[in-house]
């Protein structure tokens, strides 16, 4: 039940050079307990665009996730694991031009503040 609550479908989409291109990631929010912890989330990307060759790219890590040839839509699922929010884009393979963007937001319940270190306060 808890997983279900966390994974309530949410979407995020935008487009750049192609007005009709969409890139949607579901779910888009990953919640870990403490700031700095790695967050785990099973996510699925869905994209639609004009018929062409495209790649799904993790811009935060400069990593190509998957590429498609002569497709106008596609889907890709993977196990997201990160300590920070990640930006993704759907790119035209020939020009590396972004045609749509999506983001997985990493959030924490407890946003800790650091104590001062190696310091005596009293003695």
């Amino acid at each position, binding site marked *: 039940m*808890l997983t279900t*609550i*966390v994974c309530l479908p949410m979407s995020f989409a935008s487009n750049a050079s192609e007005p009709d291109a969409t890139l949607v990631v579901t779910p888009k*929010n*990953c*919640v*870990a*307990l*403490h*700031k*700095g*912890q*790695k*967050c*785990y989330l099973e996510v699925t990307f869905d994209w639609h665009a004009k018929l062409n060759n495209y790649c799904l790219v993790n811009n935060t890590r400069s990593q190509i996730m998957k590429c498609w040839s002569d497709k106008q839509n596609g889907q890709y699922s993977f196990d997201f694991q990160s300590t920070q929010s990640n930006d993704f884009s759907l790119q035209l393979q020939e020009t590396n031009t972004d045609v749509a963007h999506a983001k997985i937001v990493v*959030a*924490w*319940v*407890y*946003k*800790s*503040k*650091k*104590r*001062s*270190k*190696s*310091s*005596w*306060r*009293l*003695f």
Partner: protein
Amino acid sequence: MNITLNKITLAALTLLGTSFTSNLFAADISHSLRNKQQDNSTENYFELGLGLATGAGPTVEEDKDNEWAGAFLVVNGSYNWRGFFIEKFGESTDPLVLGFNAYTGDNWSLDIVLVPKGRGIQGGEDDRFNGLDDRDSSTMFGGRLTGYIDDNIVQFSVKHNIGSNHQGTTASALIGRNWQVRNWNFHSMAGVRFFDAKLNDYYLGISADEAARTDFDEYSPGSNLNLTAEVGVTYPITEDWVFRSTARFAQFLGDKTDSPIFVDKRDNAMSLTTSISYVF
């Protein structure tokens, strides 16, 4: 099984230096375990929630099963300001911990703490206690040293009663660790706590005067040790909601549960708690 978690049940648990939630000595390290950061950080936060608890332990009421269950209010939080801090972690029955962080290094932290200890039985609270003196809450003052060694947290604590209640002393040594399995945060802890005879006698003893005016026999317990173990899990449901579940066990060494105050004199207690809290 009792379907209530009334004041007398809580008083019985207080008498033993334990509670259905994080007990007095476990609260600090439980908080540390559940909030362990690689940078030994702390934070300001406040959360409210609801929980369910069930458990078994010695009883102080006649005709009561030694198993109990009930709902409880979760009030957790901590606030830190220039080394001073207030901690409340323990899901409703734990007293506050007021303190001052005297030293924080890469692996060790030393706090000076002031801990209100919960009250015990009250003479007028139950017919059975008529004629007994109130075991009021008391204030314990001391230090707690917390070490972060590899993936373990160790905590040593010594506290002495200030004021005129009993002048008793407690000391504890605890070790725990936490680990993350995807977004689930598990922790385990084991430890030992010492209660001196003065403290035990205040909460569990029967004085000659009390014995003279009641049916209780005179009784004076010695010092004792509590052995404890705890496992728990914390899960972030959303950015604002947290789920917790914890199982605890305590074994009371010595003769403190032989006190005439107890009806059921079993020498151990256990509990299982589950809660959901909103973090502000």
